[in-house]
């Protein structure tokens, strides 16, 4: 159905020196690095070939626009206006005239070229340190022409990694719930799109209510809750084949599913007789294990990246709080002690933080705390927002927000938003419909 695994041939071109410029990602968008993204140059014959295949007049410009938009969205870079560029793309890629680029205050420069080779798309790009007057990275990719957007995302990931010292998050996808219709009779479908909103596809038809999709570590499978035949159960979906199956054979509602870090188990809640506990099911041998055993509500489980611990949501103290335990269910410890209610804990991919939703005095917050509950930081406040999901590098959270309706109950909408760990750079994530329950994939290309 949808192909995730597409082979890229990556060639590292010889490059001459070490980086002198660096981006400090802990400072958020206070001082974004001025960067010039020169359009990738393209020869006339290649241009015509790609125009025929992809219906894009100048694929070199299109790819560079993707890079530029990604860099801007990150909040760490300030891509400069192309109108001010003095040097032609093809010349710049051979040898930039650094005085021209420093004149427009660019500190870094991206150049490159695109070729049509054996029916394939070959993209070469170079990253230059303008102040030092040196090339600091050069790479070439060969892939099928249809992958052109991904080439833009991969270039951004390489540039981001080279300049920040951390992996990027641009060659990724978001799975989410697309919503439409009145608030009282919402129609919900599973949908998947690239991180920048492109290539949106619906994975279910909207005949039944679906909620909380989450990727497995390789981002080829999704676990989610479906009300198929009015029986709310956790399902597994293979994105490529479209095959779906119920997870386990539980005599009641299963919900709040997530994969274990190795992808072999699904952890979820099972509700029976007014009590929700946490269970795992091994996807290979189908063995079900009960992890919590408590008369309170235990839900929203999420593994630590090493698989040794689980954070979860419980009201065993009387109200919703965040707890952690060992993955066998032992050593349960409450970690949230601030004012208000806490829900939806999600362990960061770096292992050091837990993101959560907090409700206090009628406002909803997205925040992070250390795994022992210390260092709580609230990143954003709103009328209603919840369900953060981490970017694969643990630097950005995506979540959804719902609007307050007016006296007549009108004006409802649900949208995806993202925010940096620093609390800066809050952005609306464009979706074709209303949207909720986002889950960020792993990096697809590494």
């Amino acid at each position, binding site marked *: 159905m949808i192909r995730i695994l597409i082979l890229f041939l990556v060639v590292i071109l010889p490059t001459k020196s070490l980086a002198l410029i660096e981006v400090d990602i802990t400072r958020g968008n206070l001082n974004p690095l001025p960067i010039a993204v020169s359009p990738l140059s393209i020869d006339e014959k290649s241009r015509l070939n790609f125009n025929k295949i992809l219906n894009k007049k100048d694929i070199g410009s299109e790819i560079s626009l993707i890079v530029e938009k990604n860099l801007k969205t990150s909040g760490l870079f300030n891509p400069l206006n192309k109108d001010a560029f003095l040097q032609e793309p093809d010349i710049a890629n051979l040898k930039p005239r650094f005085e021209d680029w420093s004149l427009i205050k660019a500190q870094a420069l991206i150049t490159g070229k695109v070729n049509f080779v054996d029916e394939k798309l070959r993209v070469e790009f170079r990253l230059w340190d303008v102040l030092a007057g040196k090339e600091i990275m050069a790479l070439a990719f060969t892939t099928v022409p249809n992958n052109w957007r991904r080439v833009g995302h991969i270039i951004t990931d390489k540039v981001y990694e080279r300049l920040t010292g951390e992996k990027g998050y641009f060659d990724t996808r978001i799975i989410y719930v697309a919503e439409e219709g*009145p*608030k*009282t*009779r*919402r129609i919900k479908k599973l949908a998947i799109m690239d991180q920048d909103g492109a290539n949106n596809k619906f994975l279910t038809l909207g005949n039944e*209510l679906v*909620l*909380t999709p989450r990727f497995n570590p390789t981002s080829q499978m999704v676990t989610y*809750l479906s009300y198929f035949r*009015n029986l*709310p159960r956790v399902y597994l979906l293979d994105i490529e084949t479209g095959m779906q199956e119920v997870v386990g054979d539980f005599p*009641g*509602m299963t*919900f*709040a599913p997530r994969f274990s870090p190795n992808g072999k188990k699904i952890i979820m*809640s099972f*509700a029976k*007789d*007014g*009590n*929700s506990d946490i269970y795992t099911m091994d996807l290979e041998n189908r063995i079900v294990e009960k992890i919590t055993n408590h*008369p*309170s*509500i235990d*839900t*929203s489980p999420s593994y630590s990246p090493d698989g040794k611990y689980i954070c979860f*949501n419980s*009201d*065993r*103290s*009387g*109200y*919703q709080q965040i707890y952690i335990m060992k993955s066998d269910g032992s050593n349960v410890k409450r970690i949230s002690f601030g004012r208000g*209610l806490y*829900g*939806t804990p999600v362990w960061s991919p770096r292992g050091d933080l837990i993101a959560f*939703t907090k*409700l206090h005095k*009628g406002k909803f917050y997205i925040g992070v705390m250390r795994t022992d509950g210390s260092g709580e930081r609230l990143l954003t406040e709103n*009328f*209603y927002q*919840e*369900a953060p999901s981490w970017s694969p590098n643990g630097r950005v959270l995506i979540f959804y927000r*719902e609007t*307050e*309706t007016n*006296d007549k*109950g*009108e004006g*409802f909408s649900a949208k995806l938003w993202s925010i940096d760990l620093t609390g800066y750079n809050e952005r609306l994530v464009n979706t074709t419909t209303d949207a909720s*329950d986002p889950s960020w994939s792993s990096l697809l290309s590494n």
Partner: protein
Amino acid sequence: MLSIRNIDQGAIMKLNKILKNTFLIIIASLALSACATQTKTGQMQGDVYTGTDTVKYLASGVKDRVFFATNESVLTTAARETLRKQAAWLRKNSKITIVLEGHADERGTREYNLALGERRANSAKDYLMTYGISSDRISVLSYGKERPVDSGSNPLAWSKNRRSVTVKAN
């Protein structure tokens, strides 16, 4: 009165769940309604909906739904009265089976609300069972916050949405 309620709420709920002791439910509900009368406003008592805007009837005089306080699954005096009438109607119509649909308001996280809706519907189920309705005739379905009846963003709308609705299944 208010402070006693706040301290004891959690403990009462848990005991109620473990023991399923009807007397405790009654004591807890009395305590709740006693202090709630102080904040009586129009169609709400405390923050439990007492109006009839959204209510439908299973039969003459038999309301189809009961309402809950925020984050609560304890049945109020009015809820128990409604459920006793439902039980009497179900005893008279012994072929009827029902689905109890548990709901939460929009002011909570989705996953917790699914669990809360299930807990509310089971509160109603347990009460019907103590009045002689076999569990074979009752199934439970939680919608969490997915199916509000009132799309407003205000306390009255939310009180209408915190509910367990008894629906005929056959």
